[in-house]
């Protein structure tokens, strides 16, 4: 019968289809041992891969492999250690003399000299180059000339930078900043080869640096293959043959690929898979602290929030949030309840002090309700928490925080989530002071210093002080800490400033964020650094 033949033919087509796909499947990466290649998930970097223009993890991963700077943060402890720098000296916390080792070269053979640094920093700071990390150079003298707040630049180079000879240069800061050398591990401070300026487009298509890996090929938006550079002069040579970064459209797909054995490393385990991760990966799952803190911020440009009574309300709200339950249930322990305004990755010496916040960060239903009522209740009668609904699982935890507050207040309308469609729109509302309620705020450290968790966020008119909070006592203590020449003393003074935050509660600390990653049984010695970037050069292929 004709009909039946056609059905059979159709079935055949499906079978052929699946069989053919089968032929296309598989793949995987060849080679093992010291020359083995590790495949890793990646996301399309948001900005061109210039060091002073990369401010997110995906581009940061590449820079971390391709570049080395004066200072490098220890992947385990986050401690700043000299890498290219021989010594960084100062007598007054304001004028620094930097001497570099003379055995470093770029992978194209060019020597790394003092000039390579000075040119790169001048490039990064100059307004005309549109570098998003330009503010890193703000402490160097002359920054306001090359990068004025408005209008055009009146100087081409930073007056605070002077090359003495091939291996020495001096830096003059515009203010005292004793911990400044510790900031130099950030990617914006790496040296750049001459070809970066002379042949910019070609450099962007295939970046050349001085790190343990070189870029073998780069297909924008889809993949980058990095290979070990055998001539690398540093001590942290790559333990594997190279890294293949693959862009995934969705981190769930990357995770699926990992479980199917097609991928070696996923450094962002999707929230929806956290409940399966133990079963799928067992001990090949990493969950370690990263230098990220999540908070709830408030608008101090709105009168009702900027009163002495509102302090009590904020403290009450903080006490009404059951942090432990939310981090367990929603984040499955990939967050830790926060008890100060820094991060555990700083370590005790770096300024992390658990419990600094004290009782205002502890869950206490009766005290919470009492404080909020003493403070005259929530301004406007309802707390609106704005968040971006497009990425991350913000809706889940904002709703949970609101439920927690509503339970305490015995009022179903005391707190509601206010989603904003896209991250860009959310950020633009936050940074132009459009929001009249609270909003979710996150801070990923630029360098593992307590200063970085405080000054940019809470100092009067600081770059990321979106709520426009201002406190003279806090500002005074930060200035004092920056002028301290002794590191331990500076850290203690910063902690004193942090205690002002506990009294005033300008933002409510929620939790410290962890970095998570999963890896295949082909590789070992996988870890994440305090910036939640995998330490690629230490990965070993079995």
């Amino acid at each position, binding site marked *: 019968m004709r009909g039946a033949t056609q059905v059979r033919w159709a079935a055949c*087509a499906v079978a052929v*289809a*699946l069989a053919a796909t089968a032929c296309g499947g598989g793949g995987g990466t060849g080679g093992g041992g010291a020359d083995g290649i590790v495949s890793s998930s990646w996301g399309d970097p948001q900005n061109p891969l210039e060091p002073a223009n990369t401010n997110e993890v995906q581009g940061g991963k590449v820079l971390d492999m391709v570049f080395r700077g004066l200072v490098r943060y220890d992947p385990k402890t986050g401690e700043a250690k000299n890498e290219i720098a021989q010594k960084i000296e100062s007598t007054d916390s304001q004028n620094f003399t930097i001497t570099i080792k003379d055995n470093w070269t770029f992978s194209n053979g060019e020597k790394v000299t003092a000039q390579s640094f000075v040119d790169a920093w001048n490039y990064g700071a100059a307004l005309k180059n549109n570098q998003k990390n330009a503010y890193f150079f703000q402490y160097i003298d002359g920054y306001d000339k090359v990068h004025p707040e408005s209008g055009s630049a009146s100087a081409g180079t930073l007056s605070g930078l002077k090359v003495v000879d091939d291996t020495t240069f001096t830096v003059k800061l515009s203010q005292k900043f004793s911990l400044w050398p510790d900031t130099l591990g950030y990617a914006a401070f790496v040296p750049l080869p001459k070809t970066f300026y002379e042949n910019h487009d070609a450099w962007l298509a295939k970046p050349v640096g001085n790190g343990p890996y070189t870029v073998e090929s780069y297909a924008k938006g*889809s993949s980058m293959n990095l290979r070990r550079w055998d001539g690398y002069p540093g001590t942290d040579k790559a333990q594997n043959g190279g890294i293949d970064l*693959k862009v995934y459209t969705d981190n769930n797909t990357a995770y*699926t*690929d990992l479980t199917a054995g097609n991928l070696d490393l996923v450094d962002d385990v999707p929230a929806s898979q956290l409940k399966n991760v133990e079963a799928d990966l067992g001990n090949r799952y990493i969950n370690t602290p990263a230098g990220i803190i999540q908070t709830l911020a408030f608008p101090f440009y709105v009168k009702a929030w900027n009163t002495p009574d509102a302090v009590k309300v904020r403290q009450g709200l903080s006490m009404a949030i059951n942090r432990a339950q939310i981090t367990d249930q929603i984040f499955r322990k990939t967050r830790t309840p926060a008890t100060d305004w820094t991060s555990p990755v700083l370590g005790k010496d770096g300024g992390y002090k658990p419990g600094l916040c004290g009782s205002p960060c502890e869950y206490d239903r009766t005290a919470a309700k009492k404080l909020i009522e003493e403070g005259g209740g929530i301004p406007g009668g309802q707390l609106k928490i704005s968040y971006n609904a497009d990425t991350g699982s913000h809706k889940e935890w904002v709703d949970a925080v609101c439920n927690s507050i509503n339970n305490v207040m015995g009022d179903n309308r005391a707190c509601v989530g206010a989603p904003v469609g*896209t991250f860009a729109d959310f950020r633009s509302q936050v940074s132009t002071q459009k929001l009249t309620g609270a909003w979710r705020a996150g801070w990923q450290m630029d360098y593992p210093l307590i200063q970085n968790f405080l000054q940019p966020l809470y100092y009067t008119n600081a770059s*990321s002080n979106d709520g426009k909070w201002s406190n003279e006592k806090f500002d005074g203590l930060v200035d004092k800490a920056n002028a301290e020449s002794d590191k331990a003393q500076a850290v203690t003074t910063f902690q004193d400033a942090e205690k002002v935050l506990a009294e005033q509660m300008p933002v409510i600390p929620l939790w410290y964020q962890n970095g998570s990653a999963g890896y295949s049984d082909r590789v070992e010695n996988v870890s994440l650094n305090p910036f939640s970037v995998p330490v690629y050069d230490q990965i070993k292929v079995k």
Partner: protein
Amino acid sequence: MGRYVIRRLLQMIPVFFGTTLLIFLMVNVMGDPVAGLCGDRQCDPATAARLRAEFGLDKPVWQQYLTYMGNVFTGNFGTAFNGQKVTELMATAFPITIRLTVVAIVFEIVIGISLGVVTGLQRGRPVDTGVLVLTLVVISVPTFVTGLLLQLLLGVKWGVISPSVSSEAPLDELILPGLVLASVSLAYVTRLTRTSIAENTRADYVRTAVAKGLPRRRVVVRHLLRNSLIPVITFIGTDVGALMGGAIVTERIFNIHGVGYQLYQGILRQNTQTVVGFVTVLVLVFLAANLIVDLLYAVLDPRIRYA
């Protein structure tokens, strides 16, 4: 015929400008894209202002639109925020999505139409009922369920395919995603063909053809099927455009770096240039597909004439 085509082409001009203007306004309503470029921190105001000027975001919307359209006509679709030219993005994304669409359409035509003919000819028999129930199931299950399920079973549990498509996206790796993408439309095509065939089996021209003593194959293929295809072609024609732009779910599940993914990312990053550029091309695809469908009517049904 020629005059008809010219008239249709002229009609496309206002449609083209209207749709691009709408999408341009919609993307602009979402707010300032530069604010999203600096993560959870504030961009420094001087750099942000320079970026706005560079992307022309400091001008009024109507002026932005005019400049943009002017550039489009010279083949310049602008630059994405990561410094890549939008034309470059298109050159990588469109070939992949076209391959995926072709695979999906082939599945729709081959499986959908053959199943439709079989069931249409055997109305009420078990084969018919069975296929009908099956199509109902396929239509009611969302694509992401089918996609994730097949990916898990074939990709992870049985290991017959790779769960994700490589960045080159060769044809053989696109067969499963294509099947998933086509599944719902395929079910509709089956049902449309079946109804149409069942209706036309009793048409006069079929009876005439049988009476002439033509072989059954010729009656079915030349007379019955050809005349029954009009609603099906209409559906497939509009589906070409829908598949190209609407493959976001399938593309994300199977890691296909096609048009859907670029659009998704463009919207997330509020990249006006990418979104408007891709949608403009999609609008053109829609318009062209519709014109071709209308012209095909005349080929399929000799009674239809365009003056």
